[in-house]
């Protein structure tokens, strides 16, 4: 007979499946490399991201300044690294926050149905009918530009996807017999929701969180570009790109936007391919 399979061996098996998906591995590689680079930014560069050096303004890339310097003579390489740290954190936390809300709402709505569900559903329809970016801009106008606010805003405007996902899963899972039998021997609703159904509904959420992270990193960049993201004095990928609003930067100082833009694209590409790989793993049909 087969050897006893444990949870960790399931993980191992999935991992070996994932490894076979070369794109996903490539994505993971990018994520890990960029992630590590931003985490250990202080080891990679001796420049401070805020180190103004007015005698060295807008220097093109050189051996000294790997990716050149910006209008204040700050090292672009260092800013991209430190900026990434915050951008990735914002993206990830935003996605996790949104997933958290979506999961809670989705489980409750999906499990209990009835008016709770109907209200949540209506609410989601309303939120969905606002373009997220507009909503985010309004929220930011109301609550101010702040890293934490931005994360909250991402969460508050972004839960619809996970909500629908989890709700759908709950709708189908709550009629599965294993749930019914839990009810039949008197398990409480909360334990059923969070102990029994949720773990079964959570895998697609993981994929969704991955893809949402990518989305939010892009959103942060977009907002930063528009000058509406986190306070512009904090370096993030978006804020670094803010300077590219003026055409003379686009024309004359290509390194100020090309490098940060490419790094964002690369990171998001990595997250997306990894997310796709994960999804293929979970749902080979898609």
């Amino acid at each position, binding site marked *: 007979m087969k050897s006893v399979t444990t949870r960790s061996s399931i993980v191992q098996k999935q991992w070996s499946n994932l490894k076979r998906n070369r794109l996903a591995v490539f994505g993971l590689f990018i994520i890990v490399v960029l992630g590590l680079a931003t985490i250990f930014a202080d080891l990679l560069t001796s420049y401070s991201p*805020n180190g*103004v050096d007015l005698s060295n303004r807008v220097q093109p890339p050189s051996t000294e300044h790997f990716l050149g310097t910006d209008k204040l003579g700050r090292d672009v390489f260092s800013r991209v690294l430190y900026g990434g740290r915050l951008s990735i954190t914002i993206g990830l936390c935003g996605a996790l926050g949104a997933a958290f809300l979506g999961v809670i709402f989705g489980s409750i709505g999906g499990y209990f149905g009835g008016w709770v569900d109907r209200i949540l559903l209506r609410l989601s329809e309303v939120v969905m009918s606002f373009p997220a970016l507009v909503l985010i801009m309004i929220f930011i*106008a109301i609550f101010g*530009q702040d890293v934490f606010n931005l994360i909250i805003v991402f969460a508050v405007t972004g839960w619809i996807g996970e909500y629908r996902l989890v709700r759908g899963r709950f709708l189908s899972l709550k009629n599965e017999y294993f749930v019914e039998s839990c009810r039949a021997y008197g398990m409480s609703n909360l334990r059923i929701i969070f102990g029994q159904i949720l773990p079964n509904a959570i895998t697609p959420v993981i994929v969704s969180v991955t893809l949402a992270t990518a989305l939010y990193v892009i959103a942060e960049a977009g907002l930063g570009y528009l000058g509406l993201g986190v306070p*512009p*004095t904090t370096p993030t990928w978006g804020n670094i790109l803010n300077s590219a*609003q003026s055409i*003379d930067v686009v024309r004359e100082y290509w390194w100020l936007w090309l490098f940060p833009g490419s790094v964002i694209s690369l990171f998001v590409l990595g997250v997306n391919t990894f997310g796709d790989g994960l999804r293929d793993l979970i749902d080979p049909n898609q």
Partner: protein
Amino acid sequence: ACSNDEKVTNETDSLDNESSNDNSNDAKTEASNEALLVGDGNGEVFGETFRTFWVDNPNGIEYWINRGLLKRDADMKNVHEDLAAKYEVSDDELTYTFTLKDVVKWHDGEEFTAEDVKWSIETAIKFPTAVDTWYAFDAIKGYEAYKEGEVDNLEGVKIKGNTVSIELRYPYGMFLQKISNFDILPKHLLGDADIVKLQQDPYWKKPIGTGPYKITEVKFGEYAVLEAFEDYDGPEPNVKKVLYQRIPEGKVLPKIQAKELDYIGALRNVDLVDQISKVPGYKVHKVPQIYNRYFMVNMKGSQKLEDIKVRQAILHAIDRKTIVEETFKGQAEVADGHVPPSFADEHNKNIEKYEYDPDKAVELLEEAGFDFSQPLKIAYYYDNQETVDLMNIVAFYLEEIGVKTEISLLKGDLLELIYHQADYDIIYAALSQPDPASAIQSYSEGSLMFQTVWDGYQYDQVFSLQEELAQTSDLEDRARLIKEIDKIQAESLYILPFYHMNVYAAVNESRLKTAGEYGNEWVDYKRHLENWQLKN
């Protein structure tokens, strides 16, 4: 008037204009050949509608189409007649009498009358955002009663035929200058409008005036076409047609490189000015104008800066000279007071200067027992890149001497945040002022700053000087007073002066010959538009 110009540089709206690479159809080229191509350097012109000419920094186009009773010189001091054929000031400087020109027509053919003047003054007093008239119109007799609605008639303004006499309660030294910047609006069109809803009157879709040009076509957000007004009472302008275009800052250079712009004023972007000056045929003119950048100190709410040594230390810590030289390429000067050297009469050369000296800064801080563990809270409320850059620079220099900083962008109800909550140690401001007296006005008793965040830091000496200044019209006396006030400021440092920015106007000299006078773009001054000429 003066301006919160910083905020508009981030102007999003934008519109059309031609890029250097686009050499399209004939109709357009033709149009541009005969018309004077004016750009709106101000950036905020007629985005969606024209704004009431009385509010702060409205459109930039009103100087072409409308007029006041008087007009200042480009240096902002002396005044000349404009709608008024002559003016008299009584000896006690309390009564001003203006005799209007005989035949002046509005662009719609109606006659301009003294009624228009009286109505305009009265309406402006009631119109909430009529910034230009603050202080000056307060002085008019019967102001309070009229403003509160107790009487229907402003006692101090009387008309008799085509003379208008204005009686003041107390002397106001700058009255003539203020009235010269005040646009008279047509009563026959706006007279019936609800005053607080004046801005919503359809009139503002295509306003008319008494100026040398009238608007013939408007594409909001894009351009307006001006044509010489046939019934203009002054000399007929040489240029018959003007294409007044709205150009976002980023598009100015391509436009100029394509020679599609003859004139643009109020240029403040250093790189842009630098690059325009390199385009053959173009010339940039430095405009005598006050445009200061400085920090206000929160004297009441922040104990940290209570000791003057700390405030001095901050100035010593920041290498303003390098900033000016490197990032502004010499297009700015380090400020010691509020009046730039270009206003030679009022500029005080002998005031305290705080040179870059980080060691001294540290020393001063230590003397003052400064708590290095607490961050210095720096606030700002203009959300453009240039401001952000400056904040980063300031933070950098302060951190160099061991002062931690916490920079925050104020958003929302700014009046509340700045004056009442006042959760900052220093706050950044950048203001353009038409004249030296206005530049020092935040040091007056009536300023919000004094009434709120400087509360308790009375400065009797300054207040009495300010009062004297307000009432004096003699230019020499005024210059002396201004110098004195500026010196006191520099010694007390409630305001940390940073630098005076230069402002420029760019002219395509290969095509346009102007009258050679360039003044503050936000203020009505004598531009001699009728002398402008297109070559060829």
